[in-house]
């Protein structure tokens, strides 16, 4: 190994370490507003996939080939809803009610229900069991509303 090669590697390692430390520091202390914004983005994507899935399942639009993508996105994004609501994200420009954190067991239960219902929908669509698309979708919609009812303020 030449001296120059060694220096480059050393420099690269140091840069990686610095970047790693910087990312770790950042990840350890995300700002509340960034968490809220991230949560909002995930919820917005859920909303889009929900509207798209509904339009396809109700036969308002074709795009049947796309349904699997939408329901898989719903499944992926509902996998760990509670992680979107860490303790330090209860204040600021948020519509999440205090009950998310104060009545946490109930929140976890309802978030889990959304996860289970979206999994069931994704599984049904993957199996091509078309007659059960609408009932599974309805169950997921119900889970979304139930959680919003208890844990989201209508407007702030």
């Amino acid at each position, binding site marked *: 190994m030449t001296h120059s090669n060694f220096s480059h590697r050393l420099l690269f390692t140091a840069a990686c370490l610095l970047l790693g430390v910087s990312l770790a520091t950042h990840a350890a202390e995300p700002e509340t507003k960034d968490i809220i914004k991230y949560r*909002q983005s995930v919820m917005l994507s859920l909303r889009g996939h929900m509207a798209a899935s509904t339009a396809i399942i109700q036969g308002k639009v074709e795009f049947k080939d796309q349904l699997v993508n939408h329901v898989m996105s719903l499944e992926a994004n509902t996998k760990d809803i509670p992680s979107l609501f860490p303790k330090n994200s209860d204040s600021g*420009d948020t519509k999440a009610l205090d009950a998310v954190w104060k009545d946490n067991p109930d929140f976890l239960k309802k978030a889990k229900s959304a996860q289970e219902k979206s999994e069931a929908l994704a599984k049904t669509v993957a199996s091509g069991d078309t007659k059960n698309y609408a009932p599974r979708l309805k169950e997921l919609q119900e889970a979304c509303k139930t959680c919003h009812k208890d844990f989201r303020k*209508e407007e702030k």
Partner: protein
Amino acid sequence: MGLLVAAPLAYSAGSKTPDNILTRGEYVYRAAGCLSCHTDDKHGGSALAGRRALITPFGTFYSPNITPDPETGIGRWSEHEFTRALRAGLGRNLEPLYPAFPYTSYTQMTDADLHALWIYLQSRPAVKQANKTHDLKWFASARATIRLWKALYFIPGAYKPNPQKSASWNRGAYLVEAITHCSECHTPRNALGGASTNMRYAGTRTGPENSVVPNITRDKKTGIGKWSVGDLTTYLENGMTPGGDFAGGVMAEAIDNSLRYLRREDLADIAEYIQSLPAIEHAVRKAGKNTAQKEAWE
């Protein structure tokens, strides 16, 4: 025109209560949303036993027990007293009732629906639970204030169908104005708590439970003018907006306890009527925010 505004069903006071009266009564009870306001769901209260807090700009109202319990509920009330409460906003001892109880809408109900509702409520289990005194701001606490309020804003009388309109529109109008009482939350109130007649259904930032209640007129910019009748029917049925968001708070409660039990054709009639209301431009959401972002769960 439909069940609720059809001619009264045959019923003889001396006979055993027919099932159809109970069925009709339950339907009216669901549509009127009695359960939501008269049950302290948050604290595991019994159905219709009251004590549910309703936070308003005038203070906190606690709903009364309307189970048939003779001591704490309406077990000693006569049907006449019950009907008078809904039609005229008067309590058992003729005391004026606060309009937090939406007799301002219920006054428009048909005799047949009031009767069926009375029969149905009498069939509910009695629960002994004393009422809780309202916790109101000073200016709202005197009953004399209600008398004045009623003189200014209360227009008693049953719903009068509009012969110029279709049967489905009239059905929707009856349901909305007399029973589901949408206007009570969706119409802004003036400083005295009277509904702003020129702003009907235009939404408010000072709704119940400190919520912002959306403008549901067909204004395209600030209301729901971009929604179709089908979109609104679906929303009333399952709480989903055309954009894939879901109702929360008080509206989700109204859907869960009330609207979801209505027949889809009734929900469609409600949607038809709501969509026929004049468009009013009235933004109730925070200015300067991306609407799509605001509608998501932040």
